[in-house]
């Protein structure tokens, strides 16, 4: 399978009063047509910034400082704003966490969809209405034609997120970046949306980057998982293997803190401490201050260790160490 999206050494920085803040540091991955990957990490790990960087939506004082993002073979880093705009929405689209905030409360859903349509195509009002109706029907909104003239507040949270998904799918993009699209929704609705997205991805061959802090949501959806910590990828691999047999202590911590990993009545385990400020990262491995396995070696930043189809950034990977002891 050929990659629709190829990211190599992506770096995004923010210029702050206290110095340069490296929010995304040397991120590389690739995405094949129709593939869903999960980008997982705590808040502040840089996963959202990664998503925005892919679309070239980093506002000053932030900037993409280096690396390469190739979408359908075209290099996006360094592209003019106009060329980028013509690709956004048409080749790569994004949906956000809070559907209440993303839709304009003062415009009807139909007006907003028509705007998104007109951004890339010249269509008559009649044709636009047809296309928008079709798009709403595709994401499972009942009586879509009538709903075009409704305002966002007349939809429920889940329905609003479906509208946002319909807008993202209008031009059948190759890639959709979904930034925590179910976090603001009720659990029952979450499952619906996840199932919907999975079938849409399959049906249209849309590749998806699903950004979430919740490993449980990602586990049922993604074929590959990237775990981010402090702006870097610390572990990457096929979803099933990362979840069943994690290598990086941070991934182990995330898995341990899932309610399903703990027996009923036993307090949930947590990762001790909080993510360090990106302006004051410890030398060496950024996870070292919170890590139970840390040794003096960790004062040097570990490189990516690659083993077949997975890789990790740690001197003391969980599964591997125990194997060595056993052998």
């Amino acid at each position: 399978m050929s990659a629709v999206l190829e990211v190599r050494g992506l770096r995004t920085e923010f210029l702050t009063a206290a110095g340069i803040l490296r929010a995304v540091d040397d991120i590389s991955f690739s995405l094949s047509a129709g593939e869903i990957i999960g980008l997982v990490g705590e808040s502040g790990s840089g996963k959202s910034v990664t998503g925005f960087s892919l679309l070239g939506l980093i506002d000053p004082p932030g900037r993409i400082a280096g690396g390469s993002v190739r979408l359908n073979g075209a290099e996006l880093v360094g592209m003019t704003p106009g060329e980028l705009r013509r690709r956004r929405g048409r080749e790569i689209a994004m949906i956000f966490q809070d559907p209440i905030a993303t839709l304009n409360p003062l415009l009807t859903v139909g007006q907003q969809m028509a705007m998104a349509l007109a951004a890339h195509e010249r269509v008559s009002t009649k044709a636009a209405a047809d296309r928008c109706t079709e798009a709403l029907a595709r994401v499972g909104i009942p009586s879509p034609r009538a709903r075009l003239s409704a305002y966002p507040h007349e939809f429920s949270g889940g329905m609003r997120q479906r509208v946002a998904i319909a807008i993202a799918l209008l031009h059948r993009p190759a890639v959709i970046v979904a930034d925590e699209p179910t976090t603001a929704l009720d659990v029952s609705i979450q499952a619906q949306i996840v199932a919907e997205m999975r079938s849409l991805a399959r049906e249209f061959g849309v590749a998806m980057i699903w950004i979430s802090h919740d490993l449980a949501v990602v586990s049922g959806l993604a074929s590959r998982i990237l775990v981010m910590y402090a702006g870097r990828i610390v572990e990457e691999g096929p979803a099933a293997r990362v979840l069943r047999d994690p290598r990086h202590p941070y991934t182990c911590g995330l898995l341990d803190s899932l309610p399903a990993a703990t027996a009923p009545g036993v307090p949930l385990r947590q990762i001790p401490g909080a993510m360090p400020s990106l302006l004051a990262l410890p030398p060496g491995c950024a996870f070292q201050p919170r890590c139970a396995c840390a040794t003096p070696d960790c004062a040097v930043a570990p490189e990516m260790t690659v083993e077949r189809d997975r890789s990790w950034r740690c001197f003391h990977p969980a599964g591997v160490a125990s194997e060595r002891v056993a052998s």
Partner: protein
Amino acid sequence: MLGFVVQRAFQAFVVMVVMSMIVFVGVYAVGNPVDIVIPPDATQAMRAEAIHRLGLDLPLWQQYGVFVWRLLHGDFGRSFVYNMPVLDLIGGRLPATLELVLISILFATGVGVSLGVYAGVRPSGLVAKSIMGLSILGFSVPSFWVGLILILTFAVSLGWLPAGGRGETVEVFGVPWSFLTLDGLGHIVLPALNLALFKMAMMIRLARAGTREAMLSDTVKFARAAGISEGTILRRHVLKLISIPIITVFGLELGSTVAFAVVTETIFSWPGIGKLIIDSIGVLDRPVMVAYLVLTALLFVMINFTVDLVFAAIDPRVRSGKTRT
């Protein structure tokens, strides 16, 4: 929608009743206007006669009753000083104030919102900083002093524009207007600019703050992610999002501009109701004061009512009875 209108109309009515009471009691509680209308050497009998004629011997609540009764018949009483019906007096002066206020506030809003949106889109540029400097200046400099400087610069030093009066007027529908003649337009420029400056500063701030907030909103981010161009985002999303606070303030400021016209009219000898009220306050001409205040209150209530209706037209959430945010 109809329920909404009825509810707001009832609120407006209650406000008017309360306001008329406050104004009446406030104005009538102070000073004795009899001294103005009778000669200083008047006998006690003449004095008593005058008090009786003006109805000042009745208890206050009866005076208020008479006042309201007359009010409902369109009778605001006669001015003690000009000795003519107050309504005619105010009606004759009203067009001058109206044209001054409307021209100022339209100018202030048009220019202020454009500058504010620009400053909000590019907040760190030099132009934006100059615009904000201008707005702080407009906010801080007392309006009467701006008037003085305008007169000093354009009337006294440069001699380009007249310093006072309405100039030539044209009658349309029996009402004289200045802005329709070249001479009248020349006369209205300085007072209108004077009156507009403060409002413009306010509109700049409002539009800038609203634009900055809107530009950082998820709505705009989502629109960008959909590939919608910056121009379209600005026109369709941002302008729409900032329109609500701007319309509120426009409405409120329309009223306060009528109030501020008092200062501008005094400086530029503009023969409107503002100049009239200042003159009337000076001589305690109660009927004029009461009529001015009640009419201004009515104007405010009507403006607030209209703003509420416009809100409902713009914001679907208000229409459907949800609280506005």
